[in-house]
């Protein structure tokens, strides 16, 4: 996911940094694999609740959403810290998010509904929260497929535009999450604290991404450095 404009300064790096980069890369994969490890531990400890299918389904959904937020946090983090080395890892985190989405969907379609496509399609058409979730997943699918250098080169400027859709995926995923829980955004009551927190985080990350805000932060950062 090297952005063309930043590709140059990330390619030529002094050798002493390679170990550090390896560590960073390992760290990123650790973040991506952590949910899988967590689930394995819960499974071994027989802690998947009395309703394991639902638990696993929701667990994968939360993992996909958390990692999607991690993807969206990379750019603002770079803006705030100037740590450019993080940029290429957006792609890795994004692919992990997609990976957990696929597991979430498979749990829903295979384990939960036993590949009863009639029922799955009916639910997908009738229930807004499933529609939002499916759209978010569809976006992640397109972004994952076009995340390779081949597409980056081929789509040129359009690639960046296309991949901005990750914010839309984030918003749809938060909406899907909010509507899946027993609460109401209309009366602001019920089980809404976690979706609200996710929505607030998403909004914050979006604000930090606005060009004007970003320029201001970079300017301030350089001021402090001096």
């Amino acid at each position, binding site marked *: 996911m090297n952005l063309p404009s930043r590709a140059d300064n990330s390619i030529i790096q002094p050798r002493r940094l390679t170990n550090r980069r390896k560590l960073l890369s390992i760290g990123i994969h650790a973040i991506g694999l952590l949910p899988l490890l967590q689930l394995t531990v819960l499974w071994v400890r027989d*802690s998947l*609740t*009395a*309703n*394991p*299918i*639902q638990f696993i389904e929701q667990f994968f959904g939360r993992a996909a959403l958390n990692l999607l937020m991690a993807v969206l946090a990379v750019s603002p983090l770079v803006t705030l810290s100037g740590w450019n080395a993080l940029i290429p890892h957006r792609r890795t985190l994004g692919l992990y998010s997609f990976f957990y989405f696929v597991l979430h969907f498979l749990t829903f379609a295979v384990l*939960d*509904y*036993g590949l009863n496509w009639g*029922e799955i399609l*009916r*639910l997908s058409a*009738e*229930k*807004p*929260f499933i529609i939002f979730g499916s759209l978010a997943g569809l976006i992640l699918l397109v972004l994952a497929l076009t995340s390779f250098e081949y597409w980056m080169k081929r789509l040129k400027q359009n690639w960046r535009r296309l991949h901005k859709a990750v914010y839309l995926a984030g918003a749809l995923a938060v909406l899907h999450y909010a*509507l*899946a829980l*027993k*609460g*109401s955004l*209309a*009366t*602001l*009551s*019920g*089980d*809404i*604290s976690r979706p609200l927190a996710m929505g607030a985080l998403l909004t914050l990350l979006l604000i930090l991404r606005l060009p004007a805000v970003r320029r201001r932060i970079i300017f301030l950062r350089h001021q402090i450095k001096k």
Partner: protein
Amino acid sequence: MKPDPIPSSEITPKDLYLSRREFLKTLGLLAGGAVLAACAPKLAETQSAATAAPRPATASPRPAVTPFSRATADELGDPLNSYKDITNYNNYYEFTTDKQGVAVLARDFPTSPWDVQVHGLVHRPRTFSVDELIRKFQPEERVYRLRCVEAWSMVIPWLGFPLRKLLKEVEPAGSARYVRFEAVYQPEKMPGQKVPFYPWPYQEGLRLDEAMHDLTILATGLYGGELPPQNGGGIRLVVPWKYGFKSIKAIIKIELTAEQPATLWSTVAPDEYGFYANVNPRVDHPRWSQRTERRIGEFGRRDTLMFNGYAEQVAQLYNGMDLRLYY
């Protein structure tokens, strides 16, 4: 995950059970778990209080109730869910929204002594202790299906008595048309009540004829033992043909009213949770389908039954009503 049905050969005969009870009393032991271990070794394996075998009535000063569940299935032939599943998978937002976390957080929640105030449009308002209710109304075992609005279900052997008996005791006035239930509010002991997004305390309501129906019970026990705090102890409502959230837990007040009372979930989301909340596969929750459900312990989904399988007994309560309108 499959429930462990107790073979009838392993059910302790009542006289033996009673003598054990005396024996334990003499020793002053709270060793009920050990007694049960013989009958349900699988349940007793785990150490934590939340997963241990039911606290049998022997350990309590309360009058004896059925020692163990004599039933192994509901009237449709579906096996009981295990004690472990029933007491470790709980929807009880007063503690937490994490179904596995409820048993842990509720472990030290005191459920005895427990008082229930019955008041409102009645001729003889009174406060009853649960111990007195148990003595007076002799709880019996009722094996009911519980269908959660989240589309999972269990088969549970409750110990309880018809709510009707209690209502008769206080003599409802002619003007009484509804029954309002209010649950305990103790945020210092129930961390979920500190979450600001709910209009605590939990409250629920029934139409008077629903409340007088023989299937409607106040439960004081489970699997032949006490009613654990995570399942709604000291005392809870069980209305098996309605979604689980109607069966309010930890009741402290029962009030007879002329007007339809507000309920917690219909206050939170009026378009989604109606007053009636009858299990109905043909009327979906706006966000979730109610056509199918997962029985805890089973792999596939099964079709949800009209009135949760109790249509024969309760359908006449709703004659002439549009159940899409009165959801």
